[in-house]
Each structure stands twice: as C-alpha cells, then as structure tokens.
C-alpha cells in the first residue's frame, strides 16, 4: 500500500495551524494519530495535498480538571491515554470503558479522541458516551474560540460543524449530578470490530426516580443520536422494569439504521432495543459514571 504524495507541515502553535488550514483550504487535512486518515489515503479515498500535523501542539494533549469547567480532554489524547487516565477513571469511568472497546492496542496507542470525533464515522465509540455525559466541544479557529454541545457537532457521515481553519481542541465534560452512565458496544468480534450498534446512557437517580436521563445511539443513524422520545419515557418517572423495557422499544423505533455488511435494519433495531435496556439498567445499578 502506497500513500499518495503530500506536503507535510507541523506548526508550532494552534494559531499557526489554523492559519495554515485557512491558507490551504480544502486541500489540507489535519493529521493527529492518522489511524483513519492515512488508511483512507492509502486506499485512495482521500488525496489531501497538505497534512497539517498537530504533533508539536502539546497543549492539545492534556487531560485535566478545571474548577468551574469540568474535565478537559485534549483532542490529541490517545484512546489508551483516555483509558488509563486516573482522573477519568475516577470521575467518568464509562468514557475509559468506551475507549477500551475500540480497535486494538496498536490503534489505541496512536488514534486520538479528536480524530475519532472529527472523522464523524456513525459507528464511532466515543461520541455516544460523551454526548450522554453532556460533553462540549471546544473549537479553535483563526478568529477565536467557540464551545458547542458535542451533540450538535455532527452533521452526517464524515461531516461536522468545523469551519475552514478550525480545529477541535478539546472535549469538556462538565460537572454534573449524574449518578450513573454506561456504554455498550455490540461488535462482531471482541476486538478490532466496528460497532454494529452502540448505546450509551446516563442517569440521575434519586429515591428510585429518574430525575434526568440521556440515551445516545451509535451506528444506527447518519450521526450519533439522542433517543429523545425514549428519554422522555423515563425522565421524571419512578424506575421500573416495564418502563425500561418501554424505553428500549421507543429507542429502537426512533433509531434510523441502514442495512450493511455488519447488520440489517431489523437486527440493528433489535440491538438498540436490547442494548438500551441493558445500558440503562447498568447505569442505574452500577453506581459509577
């Protein structure tokens, strides 16, 4: 496999990177881990003339807590860095588990959180759990910085809200009253398999009542999607098995899967139903976020 020719640039600052992206426009792509991009280039699916590497931008790598803001995950953090990060393990273990469900060690060692999000692959494993935890995307551009709900980040397969010259800098998980969260991936192999369907959920439970809930589906719509109607079934209600079953059924109904070589529409809807139930049950019972 041969990678097509390209110009490689490695800016020293985020501002310089943004400026280069403005200058090169559509002929440039951002290179972080390369686990998606380089493969696509070798397959001839993408032929960027410029690769703007983020490798010198250490400010984009840290995972830290900022009072008043929350946990900040630098976009360049690798999946294994997320998986093994103590802060995340203590505060949002489900995110570490989702990172662990991906690919294999070799890819988790180079693939980045930012890459996983910006590629906007419908089956990506991190978006569902991050959206379930109400994560925000911090986007930096040549004219400044903006922060949006990650839920609003994705427009379609391979499409995000990033404008020309913008870089996804970090993901922020705000402090929250959530009592439990969970991500279940259904792949056709225990490692190195894309999700046929994935469901993440987060719940805020007190006195047996579901004060708040988020259910986010992966691989069953053009983008990761909130199952809002399903959430409404449970939100504010006393938790019962029947209600959780109903939530699963509604989530399946509102999902928008396609048939492909990994699974049919009917099978994916079934998985959404089953995984939603299981994910909610785990989020309610496990007692960690």
């Amino acid at each position, binding site marked *: 496999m041969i990678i097509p020719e390209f110009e490689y640039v490695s800016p020293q600052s985020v501002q310089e990177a943004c400026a280069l992206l403005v200058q090169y426009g559509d002929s440039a792509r951002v290179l972080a881990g390369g686990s998606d991009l380089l493969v696509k280039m070798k397959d001839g699916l993408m032929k960027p003339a410029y690769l703007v590497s983020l490798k010198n931008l250490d400010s984009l790598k840290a995972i830290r807590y900022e009072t008043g803001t929350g946990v900040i995950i630098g976009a360049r953090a690798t999946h294994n860095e997320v998986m093994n990060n103590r802060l995340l393990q203590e505060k949002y273990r489900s995110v570490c588990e989702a990172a662990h469900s991906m690919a294999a060690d070799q890819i988790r060692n180079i693939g980045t959180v930012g890459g996983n999000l910006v590629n906007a692959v419908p089956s990506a494993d991190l978006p569902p759990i991050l959206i379930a935890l109400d994560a925000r995307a911090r986007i930096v551009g040549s004219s400044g910085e903006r922060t949006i709900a990650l839920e609003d980040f994705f427009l379609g397969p391979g499409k995000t809200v990033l404008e020309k010259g913008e870089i996804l800098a970090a993901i922020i998980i705000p402090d929250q009253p959530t009592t439990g969260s969970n991500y279940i991936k*259904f792949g056709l*192999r225990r490692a190195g398999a894309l999700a046929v369907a994935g469901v993440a959920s987060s719940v805020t439970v007190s006195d047996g009542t579901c004060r708040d809930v988020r259910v986010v589906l992966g691989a069953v719509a053009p983008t990761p999607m909130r199952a809002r109607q399903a959430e409404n079934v449970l939100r504010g209600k006393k938790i019962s098995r029947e209600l959780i079953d109903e939530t699963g059924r509604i989530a399946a109904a509102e999902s928008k899967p396609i048939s492909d*070589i990994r699974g049919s529409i009917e099978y994916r809807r*079934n*998985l959404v139903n089953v995984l939603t139930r299981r994910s909610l049950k785990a989020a309610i019972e496990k007692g960690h976020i």
Partner: protein
Amino acid sequence: MSEATTKEFSVIGKSVPKIDARDKVTGRAKYTGDLKVTGMLIGKILRSPHAHARILSIDTSKAEQLPGVEAVITAKDVPATFYGISPARYDETILAIEKVLQVGDKVAAVAAVDEETAVKALGLIDVEYEVLPAVLDPLRAMDEDQPQIHPQYERNISVEIHQDFGDVEMAFQQSHLVRTDRFQGNRATHVPMEPHAAISKWENGKLTIWSSTQSPHYFQYHIARVFGLKMGDVRVIKPTVGGGFGGKLEPSAAEYVSAALAMKTGRPVKIVFDRKEVFFHNRGRHAQHIELTTGVTKEGKILGVHGKYIIDGGSYTSLGIASAYYAGAMLPLIYEFDHFKFDCFRVHTNLPSCAAQRGHGAPQPRFAFESQLDMIAKELGMDPIEIRKVNARRPNTMTLNDLKVNSCEFMACLEKAREISGWVGKKGKLPPGQGIGIGCGGFITGAGYPIYRTRLPHAAAIVKVSEQGDIATLYIGAVDIGQGSDTILAQMAAEAIGINYEDMRIVSADTETTPHDFGAYASRQTLMSGHAVKQAGEEVRRQIIELAAELLEASVADLDIDRRVIFVKGSPEKMLPFETVANEFFIRKGPLMGKGSYTPPKLGGKFKGAAVGTSPAYSFAAQISQVEVDEETGQVMVTNVWDVHDCGTVINPNLLHAQVEGALFMGMGEAMYEQVVFDDKGRPLNANLGEYRVPTALDVPQVISELVDSYEPAGPWGVKEVGEGATLPTMGSYANAIYDAIGVRLYDLPLTPEKVWRAIHERKKPS
C-alpha cells in the same frame, strides 16, 4: 498397542523448542518480503475493476515513459501457456488474454525502481473494456440465460462428479428414517499473516525464485512448464514462510509475473501482494450448497447417504477439481456405511477462484453431516454420542470408496471426549441458553498420489554428518510454513542417528540444494518426509555402528547409540563418543551421509476419482463444544472446547497441541465469523482484516486438547496427521451446541449473531 509405543525415545516425543523460534521472536527470520537482491526492481500488477469484461485495448505508452519504469507488460509479452492443476483444466494465464473473469484479475504489470513509481505507472495504463454480464450466483451459474465464462465449460460447469457406491435407493427403502436437509457453506479464505510474495532473478538462462510457497517442487514444475524451461533451469527457494493453509500450493501471479518481468528487464523483480490482492487471488474455501439425505435403522445405524452439491468455484479451476472430489471422498471415512451416492457440480462464477484450504473440500460436508446426524439422533431419541458410536469406524477396515484404514481409535476419541467434557452431566441439563454439542472428523495423512502424474517418490532426505562429527545437517525438501516441520524432522533425524536435537541443523525446501519433496499440503510431511528422514538417519547410524564395531572390536549386533554415545549393550563402559567415530569415518572413507526416500503403497479403487482421498493413514477426532447464547442478540460465546485426537505417535507434544488449537480456531472462524462478501458488481466488500474477521485471542474458547493411545503401522514410529483433522469437527460441534442451548437449528455458515437471532425470532413466531 504395538511394542514401538512403549519404547522410551531419546529425542522424539519431547516438546523441544522450535528450531527457528529464536529467529522468529527476535525478528531475525527473513521472509521473502524482507529479502533484497542487488539491482532489484519492484513489480506491481494492474487488476481488473470488472467482474467480467472483454479487453478491447491496452495503452501502456504513458506508463512506459514514466521515469523509473523499466518494463510494462501485457498478455502479448508473456507466454500464452494455460496453467492450472490438471491438464484437462488448464484455464488460467499469466495475464488475461481476451477477457477478465473477476474483479482483481491480472491485466498488465510494471517493473520500476521502487514501489511508488510502480504504483504510479499502473495509474498511467489505459485499458478499454467492454463490460459483460457477470455470473455472481453459483446456484444460477448453470442456467441457460447465464453468460458462459470459459468457452470450454458449457453451462459454466467446471467439474461434474457422479459417484455411486452400492444401492442408495435400496438403502433408503430399508431405512427406518430418511432425512433430507439443505446446508450452505461460506466463502472463507486462508488469511495467512504473510501475503504471497516472490522475487525472481533471470541470469544466464536460469530462473531463480525466492517464494512464499508451500511447495517448491510444484512451483518449479509449473513455472518451468509455463515458461518452456527445463526444470533444472528453475530454482525455487523457500525463505521463512508466514502461513499458507492451502493458499500457497500453486504459483500465483507473484511468481509468474515477477518471472516474466525479470526476463524482460534482466533484473531481479520482487512482487509482494497487498492484502486486497491476497483476497483477489484467494484459492480459499468453496461455498458449498449441500443437499444431504441419510437413511438409518431405528437403532441409528446409517444405511445410506446421498449428497448433492453445487459448489462455487469462482473464476479459474486451480486446485478446485481436487476440492470437489474431496467434498465427497471424505464423507464415508469416519462412519461405516455401505451405500453412498455423490453428485457434485463445481460451477464457475465471476468471483475469485476457490481451491485448497485446510481440510480441503471436507469441512463443510462434515458440518452438514454432523448436523444432520444430531437431527437424526433427536428424532430417534438417541444421545448424539451414542449414534456416533453405533456408526464409528473400526481399525483395519476399508471404506466403501476403497480407502484403507489401518489404525483407528475413533471410538476411544468419542469415549474420552464424553468423559473429559462432563457430557453426561451436561447434555440436556445445562441452564437455558447454554448448550453442549459434538462434532467429529478425520483426515488423510498425505495424499496417496501427487498432484501431477509422476513416478517420483513423495519425499526424500539426505543427512550429512560434519567432518568433526559435532553436528549433522538434514537436507530436505519438506516445507516449514510455520507448522514446525523443520523441528519435528530434525527431532526424527536425531532420534534415528542417535544424537541430540541440539546437534541437528536443517536446510529445507530449496529445489537445488535439497532433495525432492512434494511439500506442505494434505497433512503429509510428518509421515511421508518423516519416513525419508528416518531411513536417512538410520543409514548414518548403521555406518557409524559398523566403524565403531571395528574400533571397539565388538560385533555390530551388540552395539547401540543413544544421545551421542556408542556403547556395547550390557557393557556400557565399552563406549566411544559419536564425534570420535564420525571423525574417523571421514578420515578413512570421506563424507558420512545417509539418504532416504518414501513412496506410498499403491492405494485406492478403480472408479473415476478413486485416487482422491487415498492415504497411507487417517486421523480421527471428536470435539465437544460448550456455548452460551445470548438469546436477545443472538451472540454465541463458545466457552470451552474439548478435542480428542487420534493422531498416532506424537513427535513433539507442544507443536501437536498448537496444531490442534490453530486448526480449531480456523474452524471457529469459518463456523462463526468469516465470509468474503461481494456487491452486485462482484467487488469484494470486505477484502481487509477489519471487515473479514478472523477470531482474535479474546474470542477463542478455552481448549482442552487430548490424545488417545494410537500407533499407525504405515507411519515412521507410528505417526499420522494432526494439522487439518482438527478443522473438520468444529463447525458441526458449534451448530449442535447452539441447538442444544436454544433449540434452534442453523443450516448456513457462518453462524453469525444475526442468523442466530433470526432463527430464534422465527421459532418464536406463532405458526
């Protein structure tokens, strides 16, 4: 038990480390892709984007002008000789002549100074195609309205087989129960870690090829024939090989095209397939559509079997004619019955060619048979192991298709598998969603006849002792492709000579420096190459003892050698070190050498296709699997597998159990995960390791691999095969375990979660 099994061996029977283990784990071992030859160019092949098309024109002028390009070739620049595996079905050429027959078919090739330039040059070749309708459904391939792929094969029939033994209709009439069921196999493929690779050098009229091959001999034969060279002017060298599984048993475009480019440029040319090209070349498992009818008495005794098959051969015949015959020939092996009819159509489609893969043609029919046997047992109210015991083959019997079975401990395999798996406490007694199932198998230990007609022995060996007597080198054409033949043959040589394993060196699989051997396929080397090695080693031993007798003034009959010490039996103080005698031998008589060769006895019956399935010896195995099924998602977790093998005397227990595990995991992949799928234009949708999923270390069950006492009189020291037999039972044992768990029968491989879920769903529907 024979006496031989009770003898204490010095070297064989021990789990010595693999002879190349250190080189492999340190990265020192060199595979073909690692090699560099001075002046070497890189070759690349332009492949067809269409499943079926006429080539109208090829314009190579732009590619030729690209700096760094040394040659661009099309069919007109290479021999138009058709090749394949049997002369009646030579139907493939180095590059496509008029038509391309599959996506990925070979259209043109370039040699350039580096890979980048070669790839760029491919993009500059203009090919004009007339796209033709393609045959993509094997079940429709014989229909009148389908295009004909090869001019010589009407209705796209590649191979048609009708074998009829006994009177199957009468058997069915006499049966208490006759069942007909349809099963469908999958297009699985080998997925060797190392892709196909070759470097060709053309110098002074001699072609030297370093190749990732399972058989330097067959490669030498075919390549010499296609290029019109003497076999002596073709040298095939096998470097370290990273797996073959049947996919490297015939030369691929890596060899043919690199050779053509080397001849054209006068410079060495290397071609290494990328993973997609490995899928295009394929030669993997045929997807078999099997209708199986079996009649039994009320005691479960099988009276007759009728198998009707349509199997998808893909674009070229390749080794597929043998696969088609094996699909029937292996069915009567492990159970005894007298009436059998086998009808098979191997059809061409415009998909990659199918050929030999571990278990060659036999695993999918075995899946069908083992599944149906369980269905029959259920109808009769019999335990699945009991019905197998009622029919199990016994030693020293002849199958209805004239296969002569010597050793056979199948009954012992069944009993031991039942015992170690805890079958009695589990069958029908596990909690809902859990189940246990059995599947069995058996396989040849080397084919009774070579792939092309020749009177050459099947294996040969030379052992040469060094002048100082410190080491001995085994020269052998047997091919280590990762399975460990170099190791076990070195153990055998050391045992036969009377020296230590550590004293052995090995030079293997180079048509110029090592004697002829047919190579690594059909599970043949331990028995066949082993025979040649034993004979060669014993010849050295005899010469050493003769000289030692003279030096010790003792009689030959009184001397023995063990681990480098030559001594008088009963008076061990009268001894000489091996090196002293070997050194003295060289001084007095010159090189101390031994040689051996092996030809199997004449085997098999007289009917058409009788040669397929013949073998000096057969292995037998019973495999029991335990599964947990998630009924909501259809996901199946195989938690445990117990495999009990009858494989004769064991030369290296660790390597043997590794073969069982490897075969089982490969069978597991085919059973549950693997299938090459295509779009409606014949383009593969999963020609990569992300979407063509082989099981990972996390997916495989705990495996208990056990043996039964067995001694095969046709094998050196009583050995027989293990490497392929353990692939055969797995699919059936999984399907039967799933049935036990959830009461749902699956007929189509692979047994994916979605299929399991659908089957459960269907069952739950009110009828």
